[in-house]
């Protein structure tokens, strides 16, 4: 099997990448190029491996570890291959990007970072491919720990360490639920091999418990509200290409896990499973995008938008489960295709956005978009790629985001077939409306981000001095942005892969969407005229543009005078430009119950009231879930701990007393047996 060999080669390469930094650590340049080249080759190998699996069928491999659980192996079926493909594509791009971006870190522990970067890719690959409970959990936790170190890489900033701490604790809590879910299945099956785990072997109650555990466990990793608090902290803290990987791929490991459980292990469940997921999903989407919209730190903004997109993906999964439980395989197939399609899309454009943010950060040394502006002239290519991916993430045609969003909408449209009755109808309608709200908010959010960061005049000195990013970074962004367009125009390619990915799972018929002509997107119900055609859309847009150009030039070529903006007679400067704060003000006011910003104050920095007033506008947003949920819990725990500590008073008499009491108690208790 070529795929198997490629797999081992890939593992070998990534491990080599980890080891290589030990030898090259003296020379930063060398470290950068060698380590990241290895990562690049490894990622490409991953892509090839995935392709071969799709061509030749699933392969099984054995991992070189000796643990008291018997032989531990991996198996790369289509689902694994699909996610392997994602790792490969994004990993390759980020590796190229790293050539340029790592120069920031030449005197900031680059060897460590490069090594961890390779290890991170390795761990993610393993998570997607291993087929043994213990191996999965080891890979899973290793992934978390490695990314934790990467988040904490710039530990000179206290906030990063804090973020890393919250991240590792949250993810550890999540892992507990995952372990519980796995063990419950494993004792049912009497084996820890994935192939043996079957939901049919455990009781109904434990199936429900497993479902809840999976939801919490993987939901924590995915950043499902209200378990998302680590995400907007951790992602910005990591180096940008790592943030790209974390948002683009690592979050998807959770989706992968959910798919494994819901499609393979647990089997079809009651309707409330899917419904619960749907509810959580829509909450996640709306909350995420709201917080993204009011955010000024561009990387935090992107992180919150990841939360939103996870919500959209979960919508697909939830709907799919509902359809599975009501025996509608075709619709289930569509739903899961929508989810997985969006998984890939989000991996692409979110990576580009994070890379773009990284380029901006490198050029202007700030993540605060209020400080930026006018970058479109300084960094034209970055701007283009950022714009393309913004359009994609805003789900605008003719880009890939639109396709997956359209599919999701279709799925929700047909939801009443599963959730019959008026409530089902109203529920679905609300879901659609809220998804629409999410989409609009996302569009607004990225209009704001791009408009404030890249357009108009620079708002600070460093923004004025910004320069275009290094060629490798541009190449990396270009590749992925290009893929965004391709997948937007050529949905059939992805849908074919998806249909194969979902083929073998029970209760799913994924063939419905693959239509005969390359550009078309068939309707979920297969009826002839329910679908859309990307070709038509692009054609119409082009013809419209032509008409516009004709109109524009029909009356000869008019002169174009160039002049300053009229600002009531004052020389225009950047103080007059609209700010991100202002841009999101109205939304902050309408949704104040969720994104309530307390103490919005205007401060006069200049002590003289009348002459040379210098006004600053301060906003502090109250993060609902921190203040309302996590801080109280934290306080309570610490208080209890303080109280409990009073048992160790230091009095030896008391200590001996404990022994006496214990003895007597046990003696009395033992007489009962």
């Amino acid at each position, binding site marked *: 099997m070529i795929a198997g060999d490629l797999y081992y080669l890939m593992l070998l390469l990534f491990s080599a990448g980890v080891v290589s930094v030990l030898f090259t650590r003296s020379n930063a340049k060398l470290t950068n190029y060698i380590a990241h080249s290895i990562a690049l080759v490894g990622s490409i190998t991953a892509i090839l491996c995935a392709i071969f699996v799709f061509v030749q069928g699933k392969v099984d491999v054995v991992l070189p*570890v*000796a*643990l*008291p659980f018997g032989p531990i192996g991996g198996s790369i079926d289509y689902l694994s291959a699909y996610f392997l493909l994602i790792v490969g594509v994004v990993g390759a791009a980020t590796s190229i990007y790293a050539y340029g971006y790592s120069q920031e870190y030449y005197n900031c522990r680059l060897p460590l970072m490069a090594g961890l970067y390779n290890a991170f890719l390795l761990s993610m690959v393993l998570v997607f491919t291993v087929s043994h409970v*213990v191996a999965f*959990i*080891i890979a*899973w*936790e*290793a992934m978390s*720990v490695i990314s934790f170190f990467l988040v*904490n890489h710039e*530990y000179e900033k*206290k906030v990063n*360490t804090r973020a*890393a*701490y919250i991240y*590792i*604790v949250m993810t*550890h*809590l999540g892992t*507990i639920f995952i*372990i*519980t879910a796995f*063990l*419950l299945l*494993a*004792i049912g099956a009497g084996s820890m091999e994935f192939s043996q785990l079957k939901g049919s072997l455990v009781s109904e109650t*434990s199936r429900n418990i497993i479902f809840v555990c999976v939801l919490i466990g993987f939901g924590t990793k995915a950043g499902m509200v209200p378990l998302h608090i680590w995400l907007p902290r951790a992602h910005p803290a990591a180096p940008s290409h790592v943030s790209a990987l974390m948002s683009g791929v690592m979050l998807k490991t959770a989706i992968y896990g959910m798919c494994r459980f819901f499609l393979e292990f647990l089997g079809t469940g009651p309707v409330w499973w899917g419904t619960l997921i749907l509810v959580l999903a829509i909450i996640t989407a709306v909350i995420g995008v709201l917080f993204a919209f009011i955010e000024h730190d561009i990387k935090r903004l992107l992180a919150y938008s990841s939360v939103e997109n996870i919500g959209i993906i979960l919508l697909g999964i939830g709907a799919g489960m509902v359809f599975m439980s009501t025996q509608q395989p075709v619709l289930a197939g569509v739903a899961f295709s929508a989810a997985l399609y969006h998984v890939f899309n989000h991996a692409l454009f979110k990576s580009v956005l994070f890379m773009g943010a990284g380029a901006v950060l490198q050029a202007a040394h700030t993540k605060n978009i209020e400080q930026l502006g006018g970058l479109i002239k300084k960094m034209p290519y970055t701007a283009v790629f950022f714009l393309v991916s913004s359009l994609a993430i805003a789900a605008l045609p003719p880009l890939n985001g639109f396709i997956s969003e359209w599919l999701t909408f279709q799925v929700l449209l047909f939801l009443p077939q599963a959730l019959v009755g008026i409530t089902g109808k109203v529920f679905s309608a609300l879901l659609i409306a809220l998804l629409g709200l999410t989409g609009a908010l996302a569009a607004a959010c990225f209009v704001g981000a791009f408009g404030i960061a890249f357009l108009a005049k620079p708002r600070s000195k460093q923004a004025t001095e910004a320069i275009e990013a290094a060629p490798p970074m541009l190449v990396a962004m270009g590749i992925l942005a290009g893929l965004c367009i391709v997948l937007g125009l050529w949905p059939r390619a992805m849908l074919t892969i998806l249909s194969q990915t979902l083929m073998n799972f029970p209760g799913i018929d994924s063939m419905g969407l693959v239509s005969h002509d390359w550009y078309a997107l068939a309707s979920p119900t297969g009826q002839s005229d329910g679908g859309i055609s990307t070709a038509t859309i692009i054609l119409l847009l082009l013809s419209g543009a032509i008409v516009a150009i004709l109109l524009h030039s029909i009356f000869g070529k008019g002169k174009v005078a160039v002049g300053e903006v009229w600002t009531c007679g004052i020389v225009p400067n950047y103080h007059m430009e609209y700010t991100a704060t202002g841009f999101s003000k109205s939304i902050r006011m309408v949704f104040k119950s969720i994104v309530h910003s307390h103490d919005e104050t205007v401060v006069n920095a200049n002590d003289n009231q009348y002459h040379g007033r210098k006004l600053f506008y301060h906003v502090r947003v109250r993060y609902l879930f921190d203040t309302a949920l996590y801080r109280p819990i934290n306080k309570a*725990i*610490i208080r*209890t*701990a*303080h*109280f*409990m*500590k009073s*048992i*160790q008073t230091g009095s*030896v008499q008391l*200590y*001996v007393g*404990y*022994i006496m009491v*214990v*003895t007597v108690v*046990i*003696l009395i208790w*033992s007489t009962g*047996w």
Partner: protein
Amino acid sequence: MGELLLFALFLPIATGLTSMFQTTTAALKFVNLTGSLLISSSLVAIVYNITVAGSFSYKMLYVDDLSAVLLSILAVLIFTAVLFSLSYMEKDLVNGHITFAMLRRYYGLLNVLIFTLISVLTVGNLGLMWVAVEATTLASAFLVAFYFNHSALEAAWKYIMVCTVGICLALLGTTLLYYAQVSVVGSDFQALNWLELTKMSSELDPAIVKLAFVFILVGYGTKTGLAPMHTWLPDAHSQAPTPISALLSGVVLSCAAYAVMRNLIVVQAVINHEFLQYLLIGFGVFSIAVAIPFILVQHDLKRLLAYSSVEHMGIVILGIGIGTTWSIYGALLHMINHAIAKSALFYMAGVITQEYQTKNIARIRGLVSTMPLVGTMFIIGILAITGTPPFGIFISKFIIIGAAFSSGRMLLGSGVLLLLAGIFAGMMYYCLAMAFGPKPKYRAANATIGKPALMSMIISVGLIIVTGLYVPTWLNDMLYRATAIVMGG
């Protein structure tokens, strides 16, 4: 073989005596290094013999695979501990914390402690085992009080008081067990030899045996550091010289657990299994739970580690209590992993406290910048001790939890997982606080760590990392045989 055993018992005495007569630090170091090497290698030889030739009995001495597991721990820890002491204690000497006479006494007592530990693991008789266990307490008492400052004295006093009271109860239990044996066969017979006891265990009077086991469990449990008898543990660990803390939590606790197991083997034939399981599981879970608040809110680095020992002994006893093959296997493996990881952590804590001249966590900052290697290993160690993959402790923890599940105690399993998460949160919090953050101005500005100390840490950490992904076959088989012994097969 018998000679080998005697040799192993004799060596530490010899080393101790010779080191009492040394006059230079160099000579002292040489003697102890060679001594420890010899002791460890002889122990390794014993373990090897057991793995190939099975159990072996010689006069009052008896070793089998169960002892072999503990002996292999002992072999590793004796070597690393002595190796670490070489540079650590010398630094104390240079800093003027101790005099040369004290140094000599240190090595003397250390070897006595080693002797008692070996004898605990090699005697074949519950009564003698009691004597040996009590002897470990007494031998280590002066080591706890080594610096003879106020807190050291206090710690030692509590250590002896609490432990001896506990051990007295164990003696009471042993006496009752003896009574049970005597009332079956005459007193002239192989008294308290556990092979005999195990043979006839089914004939013993359940009521007395139960009574006896309660006392024995409370007694040895005190030494094992089970809550609520653990109270001596943090004091002793935090005041003793660091190598001793490592030995205490690595070996002494494990040896006490070993004593519990030995008695368990005898009694489980007659006592209601439910009762035993509830008792042990109860103690185990309670120990884990009690450790949490002290780890969540802690100011003293060594106490932090000490409470983590309480937790881990809880896990071990829990594993034994669940009582399936799988769980006991896990418990034994957990003993090994914990011993190595915790000793490594204590060594690092020792170096850190020496460089920063404080045990106060709040004053320790920027480890990775002051001493990169130790800092990194410290983080790894903390991750390992909190049961994060891919390190050994995760494997054994996972096995025990898995056993809890497969024995139908799902709630117990996931509950324990949650408790462990609490401990993880606490440990990581302080670990990050110490490892990162700003580089201190004056403290540990130019940290100099002795080669031997570094070596011992590297060995231990290396072992932690290896055992995470690779459990050698001989160890695997040995553990399975030991498990069979504990199961009473």
